[in-house]
C-alpha cells in the first residue's frame, strides 16, 4: 500500500458518521468491516485496539467539523432544534466534505444542499433556507474583500450610463421570513471564528441550544454589509432593494431605474428626492466601490 492508498483508506473510514454513542460504525456503507480495515492499517498497543486508536481520529474529525458548523449556524440550530440540526449537519457533511483549506468555507454549499434536501427541515424548509442564507452572508460580509470606496462627492457627476460596483462584502437578501429578528435574538455578541491546532474534546451538542419562537412568513428585503470592521443588517424598502439589486447585477443606472422602479404614480420631484436620499445613504455607508 503506497502513501496515497493509505491516506485514502484512512480518510474513507474515519469520515464515516459516528453512531449515536459517538463510536465508529461497525461497517462501511459497502459492507466492509471497520475493525478489519483498522486492523490492517493501525498497530494496536497495550491499552487500545486498532479500532480504538483509529476511532480517536474519527471522533476528532466529526467533533471539529460539527463544532465549526454549530458556531457558524446558531440560527439554523435554534430553528430546527438540536436533534434535527445534528441530523442535518451529519448528512450535509457526509455528502459535502470540506473542499477548502479553511473551516470558514465549510458551510459554503449548505444553502444549495438544503434546497435539494428539504426533508431535513420538515415544516420549516423556507425558514431554514432563509436563515442559512443570512448566516452565510454574515460570514462572507465579515471578512470579504473591500474595494476602494466610491467618493460620495462624485454623486453629482452621475449620468444614465453610470455603472456602479457594489462592495464584495455586501449581500442583498430577499427573504420570505424576518429571520434577521431571530438572528439578533441568537447573536448577542460578535461572531468570531478561529482555527487552532489542538484537539477537540467536546461534542458540540453539549453546548446549550437557544430556544426561539419561529417567525411568521413576511417578505423582508435585507442588506448584509460591513462597516468599520463590524457586520450590520439593514432592511430596505422593496423599491430601494430592487434598485440596489439591479445595480449589483451590473446594469447602468438608467436601465437599473427602469427595471426596478416601474411606472409609478409618484411625482418626478418625489422620486428624485427619494433617489438622492438612497444614493447618499448607500455611498456614505461605503456600499459602492470606485468605478473600474
Amino acid at each position, binding site marked *: 500500500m503506497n*502513501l496515497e492508498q493509505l491516506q485514502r483508506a484512512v*480518510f474513507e473510514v474515519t469520515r464515516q458518521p459516528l453512531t449515536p454513542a459517538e463510536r465508529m460504525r461497525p461497517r462501511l456503507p459497502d459492507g466492509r468491516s471497520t475493525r478489519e480495515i483498522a486492523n490492517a492499517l493501525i498497530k494496536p498497543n497495550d491499552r487500545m485496539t486498532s479500532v480504538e486508536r483509529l476511532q*480517536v481520529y474519527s471522533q476528532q474529525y466529526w467533533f471539529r467539523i460539527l463544532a465549526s458548523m454549530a458556531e457558524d449556524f446558531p440560527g439554523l440550530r435554534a430553528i430546527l432544534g438540536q436533534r434535527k440540526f445534528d441530523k442535518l449537519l451529519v448528512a450535509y457533511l457526509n455528502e459535502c466534505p470540506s*473542499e477548502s*483549506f479553511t473551516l470558514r468555507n465549510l458551510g459554503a454549499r449548505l444553502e444549495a444542499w438544503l434546497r435539494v434536501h428539504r426533508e431535513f427541515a420538515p415544516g420549516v424548509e423556507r425558514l431554514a433556507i432563509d436563515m442559512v442564507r443570512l448566516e452565510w452572508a454574515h460570514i462572507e460580509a465579515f471578512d470579504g*474583500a473591500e474595494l476602494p470606496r466610491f467618493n460620495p462627492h462624485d454623486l453629482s457627476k452621475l449620468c444614465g450610463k453610470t455603472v456602479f460596483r457594489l462592495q464584495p462584502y455586501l449581500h442583498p437578501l430577499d427573504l420570505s421570513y424576518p429571520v434577521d429578528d431571530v438572528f439578533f435574538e441568537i447573536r448577542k455578541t460578535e461572531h468570531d471564528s478561529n*482555527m487552532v491546532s489542538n484537539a477537540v*474534546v467536546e461534542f458540540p451538542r453539549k453546548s446549550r441550544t437557544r430556544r426561539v419562537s419561529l417567525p411568521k412568513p413576511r417578505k423582508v428585503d435585507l442588506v448584509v454589509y460591513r462597516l468599520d470592521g463590524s457586520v450590520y443588517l439593514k432592511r430596505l424598502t422593496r423599491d430601494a432593494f430592487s434598485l440596489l439589486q439591479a445595480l449589483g447585477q451590473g446594469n447602468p443606472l438608467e436601465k437599473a431605474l427602469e427595471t426596478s422602479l416601474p411606472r409609478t404614480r409618484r411625482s418626478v420631484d418625489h422620486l428624485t428626492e427619494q433617489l438622492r436620499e438612497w444614493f447618499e445613504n448607500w455611498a456614505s455607508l461605503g456600499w459602492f466601490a470606485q468605478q473600474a
Partner: protein
Amino acid sequence: MPANRFNGNSDYGVGIGLRVPHYQHIFKKKPVVDWFEIISENFMVDGGRPLEILDQILERYRVVQHGVSMYFGSAEPLNREHLARLKLLVKRTKTPWLTDHLCWGSVDGRYTHDLLPMPYTFEAARKTAQKIREARDFLEVPIAVENVSSYAEFHVSEMTEWEFLNEVVEDADCGILLDVNNIYVSSQNHNFDPFEYLHSVPAERVAQIHIAGHSKYRKFILDTHDHPVIDPVWALYARAIELAGPTATLLEWDDRIPSFQEVHREALKAQRYLPGQLREAS
C-alpha cells in the same frame, strides 16, 4: 543557537499565541510580549476585522506565522490557492520564518482539518520533503516543520517517528518546530522514551520550540492545549534548550483560554530554563 538559517537568523524570546479573547487586553494595556504566533489560516482572508486586527498587532509586535493546513505529508500536490494566499500574508507580516505540521490531512482535494500522523516510510519522507522544498521556493521564507501528537501508528512504518523527522528535514533542508509537549504526548501513547526522541533531533535545525498542556484520558493522552505545562514537559524543554541553545519559544493555549496575564505568565516560566537563569539557580 538563538539564531539560525531556519528561523531567518532571528533572535526571538518567549511568545504566546494571538487569540481572540485576548484582543481587548492587548489593545488596551499594550503588554510587553516578545512576539505573537498567529494561525496563518485565520488571517488568509480578503478583508475585514481579521486583517485590521493583524495590522494593529504588526504596528507594535513581532509576529510569526504558524499554519494548520498545508499538509506537507498529504500525497496530493500542494494547494496553489492556499500557497498564493499564504504568500500574501507572509508579505504582510514579514514573518522571519514560517511553520506548519509534519502531518497529512487532505485526500483528493477533501480536507479533514486534522493533523493526521504520517506512515513513517521512505516514500512518505521523500514526497513530504519535496513538498516542503516546493513551498519554501514559492513562499521565499524559511520553513520549519512541527512534530505532531499522535494516537495511532501504522503497520507500514519502516522507522521511528524521530528517524522519519530526520529523514524529512535533511532531505528538505528545512528547520524543525520542536513541540516538546507533542513528544511527551506521543511517548505516552506509543510507549517510547521521550528523551531518546529528543536526543536524536538535529539540534542545529531547531528553529522554534512549542510548549503546551494536554488532557489525560484513561487509555491515552490528547493534545488539547487547555492546561498549564506539566513538569515532565518542562523537563523535556530544559533538555531541548541545553541541546539547541536559547530558542524562540511559544506557549500554545487554545481552549478554555484563561486571561492574557495567566497565559503570558505560564509562557514566561520558560525563561527559567535559559542558560543565564540556570547559572543563577545553581
